[in-house]
Structures are given as structure tokens and as C-alpha cells.
């Protein structure tokens, strides 16, 4: 069968688009990197793809708030194309800045009548933080996380804390099975109890690192799976056995295999 086609969306300030393309290619997809301006000129282009990925970076400088400006642009110019894309049983992935964008467009369905249930805001310590995190995945809910359990991936963000409107909002997300990726201390069971820094590197509610929509076909996550597709990307590959390829590649393979 034909390779699934992936669109990696470029924008001013997107900067993980090339390694994301590389990861999807390794996973067996055909990939185009396309500037958001091209998609706005011709939204119908989206129909040619099975996967839409908004990569990491600093779209529009993260000015005002991370992901906010690109989210507003997408909402204003591409709302129908985006909805049609999701309703066509296709996949959407937002990594880091892409997650911030997805969440702020509402496409992740983390909203109710009173407004957004959750947002991505400043890390508790108030700075950009780059480090590897231990994660626990809920493989049952989300296409991208099938066959995944515990995995390490790096984070690199300033505004990566998942903050919820209130306890009820968190309960709603949890009950819907939407918190599919969590920071978890190595060797310990995943928990909703707030882990201390650096196990939970940003203070996210319920240690959440990634959310999916109600269909499980749209995933946003702060950690960077595309930065762990080769064993030598792991921070301790010179001292521990690390399998080749890197465990992050599973996320991209799951997307490709969904269309197999």
C-alpha cells in the first residue's frame, strides 16, 4: 500500500520540523514540510495527508503566550479544514509548541461551556528547562501510544506546565481518559499525586505530560519523541544498554501503522 502521508506544519519560529520529518521517515511515512501560509492559501491541500503534525519550536516567538498566535491564526483561517481532517479518521500530533498550539485551538477538546479546562503555562520554577524525563504512557486510549508503557524522552520548554481551571476540570479530563502521558519517577508506579521537581519538571497537574482528544487520534505532548529515535540521543547511552532505535520512534510508527 501507499505510504501514509504526513504534513509537518512549518511556521515562523517552528524549529523541530526537520528532526520530526526525519522521525516520520524512519517510521516509514512520506513527509512534506509545509509553511502555514501555503496551507492558508490552499486549505484543500490538507486533504492529501493522513497525519498532521505541528512540531516543536517557538511559533511567532511564543510572543503573548506559547502557541497562542499560531493557534489564533489556525482558528481564524483553517477551522473547517482542521475539523474535516479530524472527522475523516485521520491523526494529529502536536509536540511541545505543537501541543501548546493544539490545546489553544480547542481541537484537543479540553473545553466546556465555561471555557478551557486546561492550559499550558509557565513552569513552576519560571525558567526554560531542558532535561530528560521518565514517562508513563496509557497505551489503551491513544493511537500514538499503542504498545508503550514506560519511556524516557527529553523535555525542553518554558511553558510546559499543564494547569487546570479547577479540580473539577482535572477530574473531567481524568475521567475521560484524556491524560495519556504522565511524568513518573523511575521504578515507581505512575501517580496523580504531584511529584517533586525534577521528576515532574514543570509542576503539571496530575503529573500530566500529554493529553489526547476524545477519539484518541489527536495527541499533544510536551516531551520530544523525535529526539529519541536513535540510541545515541539518550543521555546515558555510553553507560547503559540502550536499544536501537530509540524508544521515541514508537510514537511515529504507531501513526504509520494506524494506516497499514
Amino acid at each position, binding site marked *: 500500500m501507499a505510504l501514509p502521508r504526513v504534513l509537518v506544519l*512549518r511556521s515562523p519560529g517552528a524549529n523541530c520540523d526537520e528532526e520530526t520529518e526525519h522521525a516520520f521517515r524512519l517510521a516509514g511515512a512520506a513527509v512534506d514540510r509545509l509553511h502555514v501560509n501555503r496551507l492558508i492559501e490552499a486549505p484543500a491541500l490538507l486533504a492529501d495527508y493522513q497525519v498532521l503534525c505541528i512540531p516543536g519550536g517557538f511559533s*511567532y*516567538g511564543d510572543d503573548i503566550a506559547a502557541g497562542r498566535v499560531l493557534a*489564533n491564526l489556525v482558528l481564524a483561517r483553517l477551522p473547517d479544514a482542521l475539523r474535516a481532517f479530524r472527522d475523516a479518521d485521520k491523526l494529529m500530533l502536536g509536540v511541545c509548541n505543537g501541543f501548546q498550539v493544539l490545546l489553544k485551538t480547542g481541537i484537543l477538546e479540553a473545553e466546556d461551556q465555561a471555557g478551557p479546562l*486546561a492550559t499550558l503555562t509557565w513552569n513552576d520554577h519560571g525558567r526554560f528547562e531542558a532535561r530528560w524525563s521518565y514517562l508513563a504512557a496509557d497505551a489503551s486510549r491513544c493511537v500514538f501510544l499503542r504498545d508503550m508503557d514506560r519511556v524516557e524522552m527529553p523535555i525542553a520548554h518554558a511553558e510546559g506546565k499543564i494547569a487546570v481551571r479547577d479540580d473539577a476540570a482535572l477530574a473531567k479530563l481524568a475521567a475521560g481518559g484524556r491524560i495519556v502521558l504522565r511524568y513518573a519517577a523511575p521504578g515507581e508506579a505512575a501517580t496523580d499525586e504531584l511529584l517533586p521537581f525534577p521528576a515532574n519538571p514543570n509542576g503539571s497537574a496530575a503529573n500530566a505530560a500529554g493529553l489526547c482528544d476524545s477519539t484518541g487520534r489527536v495527541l499533544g505532548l510536551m516531551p520530544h519523541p523525535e529526539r529519541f529515535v536513535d540510541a545515541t540521543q539518550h543521555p546515558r547511552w555510553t553507560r547503559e544498554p540502550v536499544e536501537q532505535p530509540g524508544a521515541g520512534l514508537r510514537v511515529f510508527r504507531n501513526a504509520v501503522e494506524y494506516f497499514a
Partner: protein
Amino acid sequence: MLWEVDIHPAAGRVDREGERLVESARAIGVALTGVATARGFLLESQALAEADARRIAERLLADTVVEHAVVGRVGGEHLSTPPAGNGRLVSVMPKPGVMDPVAQTTEGAVAELGYADVRVGTLRKYWMDGVDASGAESLGRRLLANDAIEQLVVGPLRLERLHAGSPYRFELKTVTILGLDDDGLMRLSREGQLYLQLAEMQTIQRYYADLGREPTDIELETLAQTWSEHCSHKTLAGRIAYRDENGEQRFENMLKETVFAATVELRRRWSEAPDREDWCESVFKDNAGVVRFDETDNVCFKVETHNHPSALEPYGGANTGLGGVLRDTLGTGLGAKPVCSTDVFCFAPPTTPDEDLPAGVLAPRRVMRGVVEGVRDYGNRMGVPTVNGAVCFDDRYLGNPLVYCGNVGIVPRDKTHKEPQPGDLIVAIGGRTGRDGIHGATFSSAELTSESESVSGGAVQIGNAIEEKKVNDVLLQARDRGLYTAVTDCGAGGFSSAVGEMGEEIGAEVELASAPLKYEGLSYTEIWISEAQERMVFSVPERNAEAFRELCEGEGVEVCVIGRFTPTGKLTLKYRGEHVGELPMDFLHNGRPPVVREATYTPASRDPASLTVDDATSDLLAILASPNVASKEWIIRQYDHEVQGGSVVKPLVGVGEGGPSDAAVVRPKLDSRRGIVIACGINPRYGDLDTYRMAASAIDEAIRNCVAVGADPARIALLDNFCWGDCEQADTLGSLVRAALACRDLSLAYEAPFISGKDSLNNEFSFMAEGGEKRSIAIPPTLLISGLGQIADVANAVTMDLKRPGNLLYAVGETHGELGGSHLALVRGAAGGEPPSVDPLVARRSYAALHAAMSGGLVASCHDASEGGLAAALAEMCLAGGLGAAADLSALHDDRVCALFSESNSRFVCEITSAQAEAFEAAMAGVAIQRVGHVNAEPTLTITHGGQPCVRASVASLDAAWRTPLGC
């Protein structure tokens, strides 16, 4: 109508900005009882009603989950009411004309919501509890606003409209130079901020006397920019009579005859030998040095300094320092892609009390924070990993911090050379031109004074990384489509330097009114010499102009034709069709009279340091805790060091990713196993004793750091960055020439070519001391050597963390009694002593053997010995591996202090499995190696000397000492 939207933390959410201010105030002894903060936006438009402003606030500016917005007309009482408590309001906003990227982006996003032509400004608001109005103002000045770029408003904001510039009325200006006497010429040089020397002013005077007219202002400015120290490096490339203990040497062009000559000689050697390859592609001529990487690609490397701007405005200075060196990469050949960055800083200790600061000096703590944040925010946004660096502390960097920003790029071999063609259009893309950064090139060549802040505030620039990222994206696409024949960046001197350089062999005609401006009111000269950031200049054949424009505009990059490379041999400048200046390219580039300087070197006395050690454990802990050695994790983790996905050896390695890596390894091509290695060597403490040995040591350190992680020692390229004091003083220049001689000697001996370099002179700060006498602080001579190595297969890379209990530990290299400038001397406050020397022939053999051993998989871990000697190296390997070690160092040196703490060059500690010990020893035949001990599971480091206990420390205590905060 001018609306204000204030974004406050929502009820129950922590005000982090406020907490940070409380903490910073406490650090300088001011107790605030509470602070509330808000981010403010000013929206100006005739058509905007309050409901519109409210909608913009809710839809765009506020995140309703964690924030709430307060909206009103500027000056409205509810906008200055404290959200809680009785805090005094202080607002900080950029001065008119200062780059405000958030405001720019917001204007676009507001338009996207359907409101056209809204002008946006931003501000930050602080309500401080626990101080009176003057206390709030004083805190605002010390901690919040930098007068060079920002204004502080105490109390309610009173603002009628946003500043938009005022129209410019054209008037051609000439400058009187004919008939001036020498004093008059020098006054013109100084007061016009030309900073030219008398012989240069006289040459210009003669030139115009021959023409029979006065120069226009723009001609004089163009000459000053091009002839500035910053652009022409006239001192080091000048005539120097140098005298040292070996007699006198005369140089016609000092750099060319030392550093550059070594590279020429190496390339000759390699091209003549049948089994060798000249792997240098382009050296000392383009924006960066270029060497071969693999069959299809080259890599380039450049390190720049941005010292003077960082002294005045640390955030903006460092921000644009990194932005500038990234443009160097983009402007190398037909454009290289930035792959990774290295950043090295020199500061005064952050613990320096505010009371000890001379007028005009920012607190070192604030400088350090600002610089780190400036590099972070540019590098992270550009998506270029910062993978390597170092920080040095010394009191003498107080008024003159050093900020070195470096970048490595990758460029296809067939895109490595550029050549503008006669008739090509001169096309500028990227940011608009404003008044920012006027006189940066000439200013950076002058000495800083306590007045610099007010005189040269215009020299400060703020970056807009996303603008540069957009330029980066379209540039690489246009390169691959072959749309242009040459490119260079707008750096110091702005259009003046960029067009002047590109058109040197052809000639150029420029229409200055074509350049898009940030605001009205710029004169033609200001447009020409503005150092506004994020601009690149291209030479585009007319047939490609439309495709080039479409590509740029398609990604939101402004593009504009400003002239043409005309084959006249002249630089012709016009404003709205009127001639404003004309200079022959030959006079501009070759008319400068040579600078002639005296240089002398008198060896410093080397009184033997009397260093006795009673308690080596506490000395070792003190060394680990000293700020030069201590963990830089606070900085490193603010930098994205993994973006682009090529990271192989990270800056922090080991069991908790907490050990100091010797060098970074990066795969610049994700589909290849070949890697580049980036490292540095710097140790100004040795320079106080002997700058030759300092330079030799820095070169050795850069090379051995590369080798330690697996780089092939036969493929290491070097960069030099000289930061020195006032080189008009013969002994200051002498100490520099001596360092350059070491660069020549060591480069030849190691067969490691210098491929590019840069110098920053006049790093002195003068001020009026109490009592009215003028005092001057010169920085210590500071040479940064950066190394760019290569590794054939990254799978052979080695890290410095101990791996397995039971493995054997070897010391590689010879240990001498070299404690001069050592960290033992530093923590003990001892002066004098013998600084480390280098025997490059011995070292080369050792590096080649070690590399072969590593390539054969024989080395489990390897760490270079530098500050703190073998003892510190062992300690760092233990804390990185979470394992203990036992070592006896008597075989290294009879004296136990030297055995533990001597900083002799070219040494490593290697960890080898017992099964591979024999093979390792065979591989290292002919090299001085000693088996000194082994790795233990028990986390304790014990060091003995001939069986006598010297050090016994738990790994936890070593780790805790090493993690001593940097004091900021």
C-alpha cells in the same frame, strides 16, 4: 484612542514575576513585603472601542485559565490600583525606537482578529509593598529597568500616544575637515564618534584636499566604520615591533605572520604529501572558517565577542551577540545552516557587593543573569542547540564582562564559495532599519567609561530571534534553488560594511531611501550605518529577483532592492536620487595607513609558589566549589542543547546526567554516523604569569577536550579569540604578540590549523574613583581557543563518567611541578609559581595513541585533567558515575601536592576494564601512562601518595561541593 490591557495572574495563581522581584530585592538587602505584577499591552487606533479592546484581551492576550485582564484607557485609575495590598506602582517600558518583538507580533495577531492598523506597545508593571515611592524607583532602576533601553515610570502611566517617529527632512551634510590641525582632527574623531587615529584622520584630510572638497557625513562615517578596529583588525594586522627576552622581531602584519602563516604552512605540507589531504576549504576570508566534513558537506565555525554591548545591556548584548554569530554562519559561502552553538563568558564574581561597584557598572549578578538569558532566548528560539561553553570569574571583568558566542554550521561543498557578479541587484531581507545600534562598530573599538551608557546607548541592540529564524528558513531555500550569487550578514557597520565588503571588487550603487524603516525620521547616514539586527544582504541576478521576492514574502520576510553592484570600482550612495556620497572601493579598503605599534614583553617574576597542603580533602572540595569549576547546570539546562536531534554527547553526562562533559559531540546530518566535536580552552589565570604558556595551554586544552570524547586528533580545527586591554600600551600588546607566537608554534606542532579568529581590544573600563582620580581596570589577557573536531562514527564516543566497579584507572601524560595559576593557588590565595607548559610533540603521540585505543573500544571513560589537576579529574569522574575510586598518585610526581593538584597539560584519566588493560597498554606503548588505581562500588574517593592518605571523601560530599551555586 490609546487602550491599556493589563494581564494579571488569576486569583489563586502564583505571581512568579513578583516572587522573583522579592527574591532579587532580598539579595541586595531590601525587604519587600509583597509584589504584584502585570504584563501590559497598549493598543492605539482611531477605530478601537472599549469593547474591541476587551475582545482582544480575552481572545488573544489573556489565558483565562491562569490569568485575567484589566482593560481601560491609559491613565485610568483602576489600571494603577494595586491588585492587592498598597504597593507602589512602577512600570517599565521600552524606550521609543527600541526593538519590541512582542509588540510586533501582537500587531499581526490583532490584525488577524479583524482590527487593522492597531499600533501596539508593551510594558511591565510592578506594585511593590514595603517601600516608599523613592524606594520603589530605586529598586526599579537597580533591578528592573535598564536605562540604556528602557524607561521607568513611577505611579500612573501618563501617555497620549505611542511614539511613531517624526518625518525626516532631507539635507545633505558635509563635515569640515580641510584646514583642521591635528588637535582639530582628533576632536572631530572623538566627538563624531569616529574613533579614528591621527594618521587615519590625516589620510582622510589629504584625500579630500586632493579632491578639493569637504567629505559628506556619510563618506566620513563609511570610512570610520570600515577602518574601525572592529571591522579591520588594524592593530593585530598592523606593523608591530616586538621585543622580548629573545630580542626584537618586526612584523608587517602580525596576525598574517603568526596564526595565519601556520595554517598556510600546514596546507602546503598537506598538499605536498601524497598520503595527506588539505582539508581546509576556506580560511580567514569568509564570515567563518570552513573545513571538509564528508564527501558532500563542509562544516564552518566562527566565534565572535559582544563585550561592550553586554556591559551596557547584558540581555540585549548577549542576545544580539548570538544572533550576530548565527548570521555569520548564514553568511558563510552561499549560506551555511547553523548546527550548534558554544558560549563562553567571563564575569566578575556574582557575589561582588553593590557598594563596591564604580559608577556606570552593572552588578555582576545582574550581568550574568542577563547574559545567560540573552543567549538562552535567542538560541532556543532559533532552534540551534547550545552544546558547549565555559564561565570564568575574575574581579577584573567588573566593568568589562566578556561574552563569546560561537556557532558551527554545515554547508554543501558546492555552496561554499560566493562571488557577486557585476550587474547583480543588492537585495536586503529581514528586519527593518531603525536607529538601533548606530556606531556599534566604532564604539566597540573604544574604551568603556562610566559615561558610556549615556553616550553610546544607541549602540545597544535588542534582537528578534524569530525574524532571524524566518530569514534562516528562506535563505537556505533560496540557496538550494541557486537564486543568488553571494550573501553576507549585516553586522557591525550595517549596510555600510555589508555592501562595502561584497562590492569591494566590483563597485556598488545604493539608493538609501529604498530601505524599509521601523519608523520615520532616519537620515540617509543613519540608514547606512544602522546596526539594526536580523538583516542579510544578497547579490541577486536580475533574472532571479522575482522568484527571490516571492520566496521571501511567502514566509513573511520583508525584501527590498537597495541598489546594484555596478562595475565602476566605486561606492555610490544616493538618497531619493540625490548623490550623498562617493568613495573609490580601493581607497575604502586599502587607503588606511598602517597602524604601527611597539610591543614589549617582560617575563613576570616566577617566584616559586609556596604551597603546602595539610588537608588535601578540604582543598579538593574548595576547588570543586570554586565558581570556575563548579557545576554550570543552572545555565546549561536553560539552553536547549538537543534541538535538531543531533546530540550524542551532551554538556552534562553520567548517572544523574550531572557530570561535566569535556566536549560536545553532535551529528549534524541525521542520516549519517559521522559527528563533530566542539570544545574550548581558556585559562586567563596562566596569562598573568606568561601569555605564551596561557595560549599554549588553551590550545592544548581545546584539543585534549576534543580527543577526550573521541575526536580524531588529525582533524581538529581551531579558532582564536583574543580579548585584551589597551593595545596602545606596549606591554599590553607585547603580551598579546607573545600569545600569538604560541598559537603559531602550537598550531604547527599539533598540525591543527586556525581557520578563523577575532579580536576585541581596548577592554578597559575607566572611572573616577572617590577623590576624583581617574582609574582604569584592564581585563586580564584572555584568549579563548575553540576546537572543532570530527569523529568518524559517533558510536565510538567516550564520556567522562566512571562506568563499572573493578575497572582500572590510568593516568595518561606527564606531570610536572606546575602550580602557577593553578586552582589550588586560587583557593589558597597564593600567587606566583610555574605555569603549565606544553610539549606538543609528546602530546601529539599520546593523543594519536589514545584515539586509536578509543576507536578500538578500549576506553570505558576518559576525562581531561585541567583546573584542580588529577585530583579534581578523579573527583569529577566519581560524581558523574556515582561510583568511588581508589588511586595512588606517587608515580606521577614525588611531591604529593604536585601529584594531586599540578595542572600540567596533555593529561587524562582513563578507565579501562581489566580484560582490556593489556590491549590498552599495548595501544599506548611509547606514551607515559601509569596505572593509578581502580573504580569502587563504594561511593568514596580515596587518594594516596606512596601509601600516605591524602584525600578521603564521600562522592556525595564531592557532588555537593561541585554543585555549589554560582551565587546568582
